[in-house]
């Protein structure tokens, strides 16, 4: 049984101008101990998807099974026990920490809320966590502003892990950090995964970071998963034209001053297009793509793609490596 199983999940918002389909029929699984990358550009729905999985938002339709139990239609009260097992790490470690609380208070709060241990036990647990994420022992009585960006993200990680979750959703956890600090935090997340047997959903727009971090990758475009495969498979053999465009857009020192691979802008998710959501920007688009939305199809074991032309494109891009 998968740790997380998501089936045909929809998260729609009603806006003044119509319906915004932020998540529009998404299905995937996360296994125990697996690190799944979720890649896409701003507005593609990846953060909304993360929040919907945690039931911070109530899904419009679809199922979410966590550890075999359906959590998509539980009441907020009934979903609370699951929250201890699914946690989130945010992009901006500063705005997600209460500036008026000490690190000790911030880390003890989840334990208190979920009624874990007595005061002494909670204090011990906080001290263990502070040590585990590589912060000085003296941190417990200090306030968030006394810490650097990297240290604040360590606090965010400690808070997410203090309840001993099985799944951690990381929403752009290193994109606000300086390069020399990014590696420290990525290594820490890997170490925590090994030590605690965690699964991750790692949301990021940075393909280099995802390539390092993810066992399996989901590529999202305008609310849909357009390609899903193991990292090894996806990077070697990307099938969807959007995945290939993302890879081609990565600056590569070996490819000096090369022209931009993809023209056009990311359309607003409110601009409803018929057919494939990517067709207005797609170099392979044909008449069929403008009317018929492609469904995800298994191209090879573990590698699915939603594109009418994945077959046609295949030989040309196999050698791209």
């Amino acid at each position: 049984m998968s740790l997380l199983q998501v089936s045909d999940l929809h998260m729609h918002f009603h806006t003044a101008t119509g319906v915004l389909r932020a998540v529009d029929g998404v299905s995937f699984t996360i296994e125990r101990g697996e690190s799944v990358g979720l890649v896409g550009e701003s507005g593609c729905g990846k953060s909304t998807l993360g929040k919907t999985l945690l039931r911070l938002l109530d899904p419009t339709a679809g199922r979410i099974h966590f550890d075999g139990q359906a959590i998509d239609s539980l009441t907020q009260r009934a979903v609370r026990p699951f929250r201890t097992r699914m946690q989130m790490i945010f992009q901006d470690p500063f705005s997600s920490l209460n500036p008026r609380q000490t690190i000790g208070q911030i880390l003890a709060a989840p334990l208190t809320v979920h009624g874990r241990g007595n005061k002494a036990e909670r204090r011990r647990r906080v001290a263990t966590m502070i040590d585990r994420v590589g912060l000085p022992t003296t941190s417990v009585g200090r306030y968030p502003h006394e810490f650097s960006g990297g240290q604040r993200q360590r606090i965010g990680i400690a808070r997410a892990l203090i309840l001993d979750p099985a799944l951690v959703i990381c929403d752009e956890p290193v994109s606000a950090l300086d390069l020399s600090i990014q590696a420290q935090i990525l290594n820490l997340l890997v170490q925590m995964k090994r030590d605690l047997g965690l699964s991750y959903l790692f949301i990021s727009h940075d393909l280099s970071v995802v390539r390092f971090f993810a066992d399996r990758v989901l590529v999202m475009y305008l609310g849909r998963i357009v390609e899903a495969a193991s990292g090894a498979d996806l990077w070697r053999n990307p099938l969807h034209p959007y995945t290939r465009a993302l890879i081609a857009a990565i600056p590569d020192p070996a490819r000096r001053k090369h022209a931009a691979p993809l023209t056009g802008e990311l359309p607003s998710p409110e601009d409803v297009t018929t057919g494939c959501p990517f067709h207005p920007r797609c170099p392979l688009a044909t008449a069929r793509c403008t009317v018929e939305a492609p469904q995800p199809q298994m191209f090879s074991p573990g590698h699915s793609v939603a594109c009418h032309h994945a077959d046609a494109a295949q030989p040309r891009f196999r050698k791209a490596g």
Partner: protein
Amino acid sequence: MTSMTPLLEVQSLTIRFAHSEPVRDLSFRVYPRETVALVGESGSGKSLTALALMGLLPSSARSGAASLTLAGADLRALTPRAWRRVRGREVAMVFQEPMTSLNPVLTIGRQITESLRHHEGLSASAARARAIELLDLVRIANPQRRVDDYPHRLSGGMRQRVMIAIAVACRPKLLIADEPTTALDVTIQAQVLELLDKLRRDLSMGLLLITHDLGVVGQWADRVVVMYAGAKVEEAAAETLFTGALHPYTRGLIAASPRFHRAHTYQDGKLSEIPGSIASAVGEAGCAFAPRCTHVRTECRLAPPQPIAVEAGWSVACPVALDRTEETRRVAVASF
């Protein structure tokens, strides 16, 4: 390239505030039609350097330099009035945040023409026609219609194109782009960098690209100046940087960045780290990087190291790194 007269010559630039010195003794050059990347993390002083070149340092800052010369003109003694003739026409800047750098209550046409009318005294209709040309130049579709739009109607990528149109309106000789693509999506980033490079060639500008993204540096820059805590630690051709960087900080940065094309995953082992943070540079009497450096020696803590020339166009401010390199080709102590 070194035989040419530099377009921009910065010699021993120092910027001080009451209790800090965020840029110290910084020297570099930009030659005509060249792209130079200024690389460093937050706190390295790269954005303040850009502001100094635009004459836009906050009034609480004191700056001094042995030379600050743009296209033969000395920028050091310019009055605020004289700066207004230089800014936009000789040197212009594209900022990181296209959302906050545009005035939300003015049409983009009005914002593009502002500098044109100031510098070139164009009539309203001539300025408008030029604004449409400029929007077309930065490849905004339907420029005739877009010229009357307000910024909120444009996407982030289009706003950055408008910022670029404003910056190049008076054909500056030097364009400074401060993290021009950091706020943009990956596919849009590539488009904007390609546009900047095309404009550099078409308008014969020098481009000073301020960035923290080593991939961008490798793909788009001719030369790189690496800064750490206000000082230049290494300067080299972009190709050299990735294959032969010498300074422990430069090497550390390159090793620490997950690079897509290196295909290294966590299963293959940890990313190499630079321990500590840039905050440790505060109050350091010697090399600012010494508290984080794995090769530190006692003499590193005594005085800030000076850039030493490795070969033409390549210098490194670390005697230890040079000692450690077997085929050290120490030419001479760099004159700048």
